[in-house]
């Protein structure tokens, strides 16, 4: 009951409502991502209580992921990367005059996916937390290494670039006083850096300033909508759901699973679910020409991915995606360390969090419906007016955390580096995971070594720790193993010919 009381009060409900509108707006404007929305929100959440702060982040991210479908449908430009997988399908249907029908199905699938992911979170997290209670520095070390490794192997594109991006994040995490010796590292005589790199300016630099630079570096936008919509939002939804309920369940399950893997967020969940849907469909030839089936698969997957990412974040403190990486930073700032103990502290905080998830996803129905009706208004908001406002918000937001100009410099430097990396095809998610998990890896390694007198074999002395260690080694060997398997297969095929 504590949890209900924490959520159902005027302040939290107001925050959820405001965050819904903010999330819908940011998601619906092409070029602004859900992660950017959350990064912009963090300076404000810093001044809120824990539950409204988390509620704001949960609601904003869920709404933004759905709203990303709106410009995807009307303009063929995904509002957020999570909509990119099925933007072709949506736009093809919109050109046939079925834009609202597509968005209606997007909305219902998003709500279902979000709630499905939340139910998995509620069921799995509790039992995982009981296992996690037995973990010591050895297990947490391997778990963090496993998380970091996943972020390299799951990322889209070059693994070398993902690896370097991850190292950049880890290097940032080493700035400040060393935990063991108290020696300052990479502080360059700046007192503000002694306590370590401030998380929020880095987030704003990486996800907001980087994207703003990308916007100004691109040619000016001309957004015109040629789609005419006179169809109903929900009229055909029951028919599609009845026909594709298996896709809905499969998309949600894949999304939750992919979301729970560190480094893979809603965008990868949508791509994989769309690919699986296409591979298993009887009508796979229709994919790409405007087929609802693929939309059901991927649209449920991206929202369930958002919820799934919270499983490792809450239970182990290992973020599942960039958004939960930001959340973990916020939780630490509020003195609430994510980990199994938050399930057992009796404060009802975790139950409040679950209620927030359900509430945010349910509120998506009316607010999403309103957004669909007003979609043209959102899409045509001129970025040339919006971007300077976001930039000023970033500057003031970065300053607000410590009232320090050093944080604005930090945002600027990290933003510049992130921009250079991003335009050269380096993914950003591993960098942010590196920043969050770098200190977890180092601190657990050091405390384990202190306990065992520097004996490295102790990392394989406990059964769970050894299991996790072997999983990490196998993951790193997987490209070689796959190559060897393919080579053997080709060789045997040639021999049989």
């Amino acid at each position, binding site marked *: 009951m504590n949890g209900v009381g924490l959520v159902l009060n005027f302040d939290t409900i107001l925050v959820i409502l405001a965050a819904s509108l903010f999330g819908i707006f940011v998601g619906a404007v092409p070029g602004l991502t859900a992660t950017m929305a959350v990064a912009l929100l963090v300076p*404000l959440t810093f001044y809120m209580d824990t539950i409204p702060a988390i509620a704001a982040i949960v609601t904003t991210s869920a709404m933004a992921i759905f709203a990303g479908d709106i410009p995807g449908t009307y303009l063929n430009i995904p509002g957020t990367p999570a909509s990119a997988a099925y933007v072709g399908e949506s736009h093809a249907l919109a050109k046939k005059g079925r834009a609202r029908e597509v968005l209606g199905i997007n909305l219902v699938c998003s709500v279902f996916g979000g709630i499905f992911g939340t139910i998995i979170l509620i069921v799995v997290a509790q039992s995982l937390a009981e296992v996690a209670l037995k973990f010591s520095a050895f297990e947490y070390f391997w778990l963090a290494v496993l998380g970091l490794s996943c972020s390299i192997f799951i990322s889209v594109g070059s693994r*070398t670039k993902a690896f370097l991006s991850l190292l950049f994040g880890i290097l940032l995490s080493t700035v400040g006083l060393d935990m063991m010796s108290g020696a300052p590292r990479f502080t360059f005589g700046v007192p503000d850096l002694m306590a370590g790199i401030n998380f929020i300016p880095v987030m704003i630099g990486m996800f907001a300033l980087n994207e703003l630079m990308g916007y100004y570096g691109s040619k000016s936008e001309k957004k015109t909508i040629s789609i005419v919509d006179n169809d109903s939002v929900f009229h055909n939804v029951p028919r599609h759901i009845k026909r594709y309920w298996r896709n809905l369940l499969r998309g949600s399950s894949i999304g939750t699973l992919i979301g729970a893997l560190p480094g893979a967020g809603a965008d990868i969940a949508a791509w994989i679910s769309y690919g699986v849907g296409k591979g298993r469909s009887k009508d796979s030839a229709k994919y790409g020409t405007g087929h609802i089936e693929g939309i059901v698969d991927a649209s449920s997957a991206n929202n369930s991915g958002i919820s799934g990412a919270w499983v490792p974040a809450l239970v182990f403190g290992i973020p599942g995606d960039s958004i939960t990486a930001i959340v973990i930073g916020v939780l630490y700032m509020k003195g609430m360390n994510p980990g199994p103990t938050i399930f057992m502290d009796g404060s009802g905080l975790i139950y409040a969090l679950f209620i927030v998830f359900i509430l945010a996803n349910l509120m998506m129905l009316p607010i999403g419906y309103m957004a669909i009706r007003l979609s043209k208004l959102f899409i045509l908001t001129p970025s040339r007016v919006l971007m300077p406002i976001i930039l000023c918000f970033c500057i003031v937001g970065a300053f607000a955390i410590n009232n320090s100009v050093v944080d604005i410099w930090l945002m600027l430097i990290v933003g510049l580096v992130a921009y250079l990396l991003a335009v050269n095809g380096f993914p950003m998610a591993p960098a942010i995971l590196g920043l969050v998990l770098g200190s977890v890896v180092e601190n657990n390694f050091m405390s384990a070594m202190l306990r065992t007198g520097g004996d490295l074999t102790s990392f394989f002395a406990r059964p769970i720790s050894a299991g996790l260690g072997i999983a990490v080694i196998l993951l790193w060997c997987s490209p070689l193993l796959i190559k060897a398997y393919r080579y053997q297969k080709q060789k045997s095929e040639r021999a049989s010919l």
Partner: protein
Amino acid sequence: MRDVFAGIGFMIAGIVTIITAQQFPTLPSLQYGPSLFPSLVGGGFCIGGAVLTLNALWQRRKAAVQEVQGNPTLAASPSEKMSWAMVLPPIAIVFYILASDYLGAMLTITIIMFLLMLLRKTKIHVALVTSVVMSSAIYFIFSHYLLIPLPQGVLLGGSLPWIF
């Protein structure tokens, strides 16, 4: 070609990181000192940078061979042109850092918004009204509601209207 430079950049960053890390003090009681992780990161930068560079060079060579063989489609690598305008946000931030103590946060962000909007061909009256209203709103939220001591500026001498 960009990957070659990025790879070289990472290798240089790796060497600098390792050299800097070697200067961190070590304690005789600790087997692993504060330089361990930064050195590992530096080593990783060197290895990753080398792999990136060699890979890019190999791809270039492969593309050149294909061009010779009369298959230029694979050889041509589209190079995305970056506009100079991408430096506008960083310049605006540096301007804020340098000017806000004198002009005050509100006036500085108004100027930034107004100029950036004009540069992207926003109508002058829209740019003026939006920048004044939005900078006032941002200033009000942060300084009045969140109690952040944003610089008031020497120019206005703290004489902002009472609501701020």
